[in-house]
């Protein structure tokens, strides 16, 4: 609950910029209100953090993630923004920057900048490489300086083109935290040359993240994008809210072994998770007036029918280990076939449960929530992100890939596994291409790797510069503060070679 002292300390907090203080004050004001109504069991589970609303705030007045149809607005212009259709490259860049400034999300900044190569490609004919470089560079710097939040995300199409090539070149030169980038990889359309360019860019700045375009399209249709940290959703839609269940704490509530867990404990807390989501969706859609008043909706750039919320889970590893112990088995997740099989039984059970629990206003997924493997926030102590293997206990790469890959098909709205590679990758980038292609062929949906030696560290999905962490406590990017919490608390910068973890808001920074 917000107190006058919270407000006073925020107003006077010299480690925040002016804008960060405003955002914080807005959160504090929102949390003076009562949250959307739920049963007492639900409030209790929330207080015990068995379920978690990601500190989104007590009165959802904008969707958590929204993905405007940028293509449509560039083609048609906007009445609200008083802009005609973009005619040339300069028009398009200016139009987009204006759009972003008028696009909300949970972070206050857009979480999706569009598939920028696809959006800009129609405007580059006749533009020299020099002009393309100079113009795109100014735009790229503007993104980082105007929208300083590592959750702001762009996607690149599977086909190598002039714009994507220039974007990677600029990324290696500018070494910015923003934008986060995902590359959509198709086994045929995406060339080795393109993936090699991307891999070389990861060596420099930790981006892009790689996504399995075939799998995504089969789950979400051709109009989808990965936004924020590994959240794959429909373009023209988004996710009202993300509520997650802490499987570690759920297992701790169970003392009767595996069968009791599946029969009573897990369904009980899944139901409370769904209840919390439902009440938040109802508030957003029926009370806040967002879908009646926002200009993105009015101009057909967002459509409630393309929204579905994200049903998140995390702490699978600890959950499995606790249940194994209750069964008298010492096997652990990532190191025992029985433990891995139990892990898969749990995610399959949840996927099935979620696919039978109707949710209101969820036409984006035919009336159901999207399952999401949630990658963590900075107060997640002693609990592992999503379905990952605990940091520091990762098995050799091939076993690691096998353990986590089997879960990926269940999580349409994203699942992340971050691998950390050493310097041998730099001398043999084709090896990384082989691993990425193999991972997608074996059913992985998302693939991210970090190089141990560069300045960027992927905290849970978003990037922070190690050099910015060293400069704390004042940083331009709001997300850097979240990163500092993660590094101090969970040692994500000391994961086993071949590995990394995600966050959006936390009580320490936003409530």
């Amino acid at each position: 609950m917000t107190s006058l002292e919270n407000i006073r300390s925020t107003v006077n907090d010299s480690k925040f910029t002016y804008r960060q203080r405003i955002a914080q004050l807005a959160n504090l004001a929102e949390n003076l209100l009562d949250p959307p109504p739920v049963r007492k069991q639900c409030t209790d589970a929330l207080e015990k953090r068995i379920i978690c609303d990601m500190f989104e705030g007590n009165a959802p007045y904008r969707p958590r993630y929204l993905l405007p149809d940028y293509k449509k607005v560039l083609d048609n212009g906007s009445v609200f923004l008083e802009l005609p259709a973009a005619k040339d490259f300069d028009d398009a860049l200016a139009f987009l920057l204006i759009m972003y400034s008028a696009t909300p999300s949970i972070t206050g900044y857009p979480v999706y900048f569009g598939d920028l190569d696809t959006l800009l490609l129609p405007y580059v004919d006749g533009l020299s490489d020099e002009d393309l470089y100079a113009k795109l560079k100014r735009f790229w710097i503007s993104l980082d300086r105007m929208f300083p939040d590592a959750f702001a995300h762009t996607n690149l199409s599977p086909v190598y083109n002039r714009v994507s090539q220039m974007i990677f070149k600029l990324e290696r030169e500018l070494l910015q935290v923003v934008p986060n980038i995902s590359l959509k990889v198709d086994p045929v359309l995406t060339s080795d040359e393109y993936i090699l360019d991307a891999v070389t860019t990861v060596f420099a700045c930790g981006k892009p993240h790689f996504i399995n375009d075939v799998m995504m399209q089969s789950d979400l249709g051709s109009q989808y994008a990965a936004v924020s940290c590994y959240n794959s959703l429909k373009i023209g839609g988004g996710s009202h809210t993300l509520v997650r269940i802490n499987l570690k704490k759920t297992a701790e509530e169970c003392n009767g072994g595996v069968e009791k867990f599946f029969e009573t404990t897990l369904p009980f807390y899944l139901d409370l998770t769904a209840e919390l989501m439902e009440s938040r969706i109802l508030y957003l859609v029926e009370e806040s007036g967002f879908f009646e008043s926002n200009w993105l909706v009015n101009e057909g750039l967002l459509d409630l029918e393309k929204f579905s919320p994200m049903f998140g889970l995390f702490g699978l590893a600890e959950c499995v280990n606790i249940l194994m112990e209750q069964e008298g088995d010492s096997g652990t997740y990532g190191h025992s076939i029985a433990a891995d099989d139990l892990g898969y039984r749990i995610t399959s059970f949840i996927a099935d449960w979620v696919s039978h629990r109707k949710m209101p206003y969820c036409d984006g997924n035919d009336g159901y929530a999207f399952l999401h493997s949630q990658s963590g926030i900075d107060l997640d102590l002693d609990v592992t992100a999503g379905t990952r293997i605990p940091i520091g206990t990762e098995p050799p790469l091939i076993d690691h890939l096998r353990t986590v890959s089997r879960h990926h098909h269940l999580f349409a709205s994203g699942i992340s596994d971050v691998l950390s590679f050493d310097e041998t990758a730099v001398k043999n980038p084709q090896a990384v291409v082989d691993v990425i292609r193999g991972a997608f062929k074996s059913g992985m949906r998302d693939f991210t790797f970090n190089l141990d030696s560069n300045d960027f560290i992927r905290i849970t999905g978003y990037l922070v510069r190690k050099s910015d962490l060293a400069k704390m406590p004042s940083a331009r990017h709001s997300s850097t503060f979240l990163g500092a919490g993660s590094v101090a608390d969970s040692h994500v910068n000391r994961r086993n070679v071949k590995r990394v973890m995600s966050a959006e808001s936390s009580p320490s920074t936003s409530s």
Partner: protein
Amino acid sequence: MLKAHQAQVASTIKFSWVDGPGNRYVLFLQGCNFNCLACHNPQTIPLRTPRANEMTVQEVLEEIRGSMPYISGVTVSGGEATVQHEFVLDLFKEIKSRKEFKGLTTFIDSNGNAPQEVWIQLAPFTDGVMLDLKALDDAKHIELTGNSNVVVLDSIRYLDSIAKLYEVRLLLVPGQNDSDRELIDTAVWLRGINPEMRIKINAFKTHGVRALARQWPEASDADLARYKDIVN
């Protein structure tokens, strides 16, 4: 005489990023016909040792399946791969003929001490050979390896002529085989065969080597820069 269908294996690696192009499954065969002072796995030199495992072609193929679909191909190293060339041939024939392994490349990491007949047999089923040249000067070669390099030089010429030489590797040991003169002569000889030849420099490290070589200095970053400057 070893039976061709069974190999003496020192070890295997499911994923290797340092044994040829891309991510590779690597089979390290036991036994080498050189006895290099600078060898960093001297335990793989004797052909017979209780530490080695016997593996059939089918067993190796089963392991390769376990590394798929994440690999570009398979590398056979050693020891010296060509000492058990009949096994390598059987293995590569299987890989190249079976649909399930389609697209995998086959590489051999060799000291080059194999007669031309061996390369002629292996060539149709081998995509590339990575070959070590310990010294161009024969007296020096004998000193470092215990053997003459006449066969090695023939192998380099022959494999290059049939476009199967992927790269030549020079293991350079400070004070042993790294003088400007030796490096220039070596580079000139190799580029005389093929101006485009890939030459890879491996800097000597004492890790794993036997007592005598442990006293040799490791190649420094400055040494490495000088090597690259001369050879490339």
